[in-house]
């Protein structure tokens, strides 16, 4: 990898109508180009600018990352206008997809592995009639102001939690300190502190990862 300060004309490539600026893709970009309501602690690392491509929060702050938070390439902050996400110091987000219309709070020293989805909302109504109204409102030329209100319930993830590959955490879930979610766990209920949870639907298991 070359340093970030020097840029040759060859570092800008155009292919298939897509531009690739290496600095937007490998973490060497100036982080002050992120939206102003994204607040970063000291020594944060954000690998890919497009992690904020679907960031639409109108709150200030909309995202708060603590000190030394590491955000790897496939992480996505997909926030609705009312969304707010906070991540504690020394957490590592490898591939966290935050789908947030309310509040998602992640503690300190949390590890989130590849392709983990954390959502505080279903983003559509459950009721069949409301779902049809929603489908009409979100059509390409629909009137989004006619969408039924979104139901959100905060997600709270404690300190020192480890979240395995491909896990899915849904609205209203609180995960206690030190818990671990094994790969592919689909979590719809609270997880006690220190517990290990696995499966779809997820349940607590006794065996610990060595």
């Amino acid at each position, binding site marked *: 990898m070359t340093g970030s300060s020097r840029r040759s004309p060859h570092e800008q490539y155009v292919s298939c109508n897509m531009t690739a600026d290496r600095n937007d893709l490998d973490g060497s970009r100036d982080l002050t180009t992120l939206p102003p309501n994204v607040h970063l602690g000291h020594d944060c690392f954000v690998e890919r600018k497009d992690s904020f491509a679907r960031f639409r929060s109108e709150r200030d702050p909309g995202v708060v990352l603590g000190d030394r938070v590491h955000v790897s390439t496939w992480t996505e902050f997909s926030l609705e206008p009312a969304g707010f996400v906070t991540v504690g110091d020394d957490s590592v987000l490898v591939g966290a997809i935050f789908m947030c219309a309310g509040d998602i709070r992640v503690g300190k020293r949390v*590890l989130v592995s590849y392709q983990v989805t954390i959502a505080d909302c279903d983003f559509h109504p459950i009721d069949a009639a409301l779902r049809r109204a929603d489908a009409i409102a979100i059509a390409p030329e629909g009137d989004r102001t006619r969408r039924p209100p979104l139901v959100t319930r905060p997600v709270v993830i404690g300190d020192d939690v*480890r979240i395995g*590959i491909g896990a899915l955490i849904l609205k209203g879930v609180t995960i206690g300190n030190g818990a671990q979610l094994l790969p592919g766990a689909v979590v719809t209920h609270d997880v006690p502190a220190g517990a290990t949870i696995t499966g779809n639907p997820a349940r607590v298991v006794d065996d610990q990862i060595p």
Partner: protein
Amino acid sequence: MKLEHDWYPADLPTAVSIGERSWLYSSYAFLHFASEDPRAVTIGDDTGVYVGTLFDLGSAGTVEIGRYCSIVGPIISTNARVTIGDYVLIAHAVVLADDPFATPGMGSSSSRRPRGDIVIDDGVWIGANTVVLGPVHIGTDAIIAAGSVVDADVPPGATWAGNPGRVVRTGVNRMD
């Protein structure tokens, strides 16, 4: 070496070899590549490695892919060995890893010891959103249903599904 069609301005690592008539979408696949093995990644002839695939290999990590494979964007995160045979299909959003809590670029022989190799035999089909955790051996012609977690060996010809995963259909005789 550079890929002619590459949109990402990096060279391929020298430890990567690609066979005849094969396709690799971009050098971006090696964003987190940290293997020190001189033959870390070998891709056989007539194989496609498509957009989104990542070789997040630690210092001891290696990947060998055979012929006529379609590798459609998995993340391969290991500090051990991954061996993929011929005629293998790997769908979208699959993760092959040697650790349930895998992270990229943190592999080093001292801090992250190999947990186990992954062996995927000829003709295996791995469905979308599957997680494969080494050490594990998936036998010839087995099918892994979409959304599964594979944390135990799968017999040849079997169909594996679910989380927790299990064999839902046993072996089908091969035509050989």
